[in-house]
């Protein structure tokens, strides 16, 4: 990747993780790793987010919340599954309340493994997500969507 074409905003949601990956996601924002220097901001509002960072496997109660947050985000959007639980279910795979990875509910673009995923690998995942975001943006434009339009 040569340059960052826009300032992407992140949305973080904990689907059912142990908290480990969540504090590492927050860690990325703090002085040691500081992803804000790339213009990346952590927002709490799905309507303004470009990248969705999800941690943890999906259980029956978070399923509808994950779907709702995903549908509220404007097109184009990228989903990053952070941590091994978000990728496949991880150590919790055999638990009775876990359905598996995030991709059982919504489409996932980037998988970041690790338990807990280290901030370096989360940042790497976000940078990969930026490339995908650019591709999706170009395709979105080609299909007649506005440059920053929200799909209705």
């Amino acid at each position, binding site marked *: 990747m040569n340059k960052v074409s826009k300032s992407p905003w992140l949305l*973080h*949601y*904990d689907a*059912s*993780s*142990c*908290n*480990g*990956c*969540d*504090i*590492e*996601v*927050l*860690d990325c924002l*703090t*002085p*040691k790793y500081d992803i804000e220097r790339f213009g990346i901001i952590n*927002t*709490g*509002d*799905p309507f303004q987010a470009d990248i969705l960072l999800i941690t*943890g*496997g999906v*259980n029956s*109660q*978070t399923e509808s*919340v994950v779907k709702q*947050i995903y549908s509220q985000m404007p097109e184009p959007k990228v989903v990053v599954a952070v941590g091994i639980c978000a990728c496949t279910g991880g*150590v*919790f795979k*055999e*638990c*009775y*309340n*876990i359905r598996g990875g995030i991709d059982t509910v919504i489409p996932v673009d980037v998988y970041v493994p690790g*338990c*807990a995923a*280290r901030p370096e690998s989360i940042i790497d995942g976000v940078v990969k997500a930026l490339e995908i975001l650019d591709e999706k943006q170009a395709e979105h434009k080609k299909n007649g969507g506005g440059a920053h339009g929200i799909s209705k």
Partner: protein
Amino acid sequence: MAKRSIVPFGPQHPVLPEPVHLDLVLEDETVVGAVPSIGYIHRGLEKLVEKRDFKQYVYIAERVCGICSCGHGLGYCESVEQVMGIEVPDRAKFLRVIWMEMSRVHSHLLWLGLLADAMGFESLFMESWRLREKILDMFDETTGGRIIHSVNCVGGVQKDMDSTMLNGILEAVKDLEKEMRPVADTFLEDYTVQSRLKGVGVLSRERAIELGAVGPMLRASGEEYDARLLGYAAYPNLTVEPVTSKDGDSYARCEVRIKELFQSFDLIREAIGKIPEGDISVPVKGNPSGEFFMRIEQPRGEAVYYVKGSGKKFLERFRLRTPTTSNIPPMVETLKGCQLADVPLLILTIDPCVSCTER
């Protein structure tokens, strides 16, 4: 009477990294009632004890929660050791205390940062989390993991620390203590912080005991209770004094946690000074048979572990009651009568750990 309205809070909310849902009953801007509903992170970890053998289950117990993972591993191992009658070597007990106190420092710094963030004091949030990195670096060096350490095992600990690592921890603690002073002064003496915290969410000593508050929440209301005094790991050989405060408001809770930080620095230094030479684990033979009820002091308060084995490789039952579970009724009590704008702050002052609570 003003018209009542219900405002949903969560599950996805900017102030908390974890999902928890509350229905807030409002009269104008004042909260008159709060109905918590949990279960967004329920995974069913206790049931998994029937599928993993008792030595493997330590890894699951540590993943109950990423912030208190060291404590959960410790609590589980101690209770299984009690069932099996295993005497852990002294060096392992001291190592457990050092890691446990480091994890308390990291947890309290994390909480202080989130508190500052909830008040909108962004630079204080960044400063607290910057200091926290020093402890995470030491975890990384001594255990190989930043968040999940996997150091406890049934019969002792898995890794030893050599003198370079112990001196490294002493250095890090010294630096941290020096840099922590100005941050602590900002939290305790800054006018802006005080105006957000003083007199907000008062919980009296009687109500705190009645509602079963634990940890810093209980100690901030003036009750001297600390599960570390019960004497597990190497705590009987160290000086532990419960840190208390009188007022029972948000400021008192913040004060207790800051004082506990400095107490943990002292405990780490004392433990490193007294650590004996020797083995770090004993071989474990046979399977656990019997039951045991164990209490330990997590950063958030007293956690209860119950294990029951019947001589098989798999335990029959593992039960865990976490500090946040006990602190939810006092939280609902403090929410009644507060302003809507103070709700995120009040939820934070119990230091909620939703992953622990829902398991």
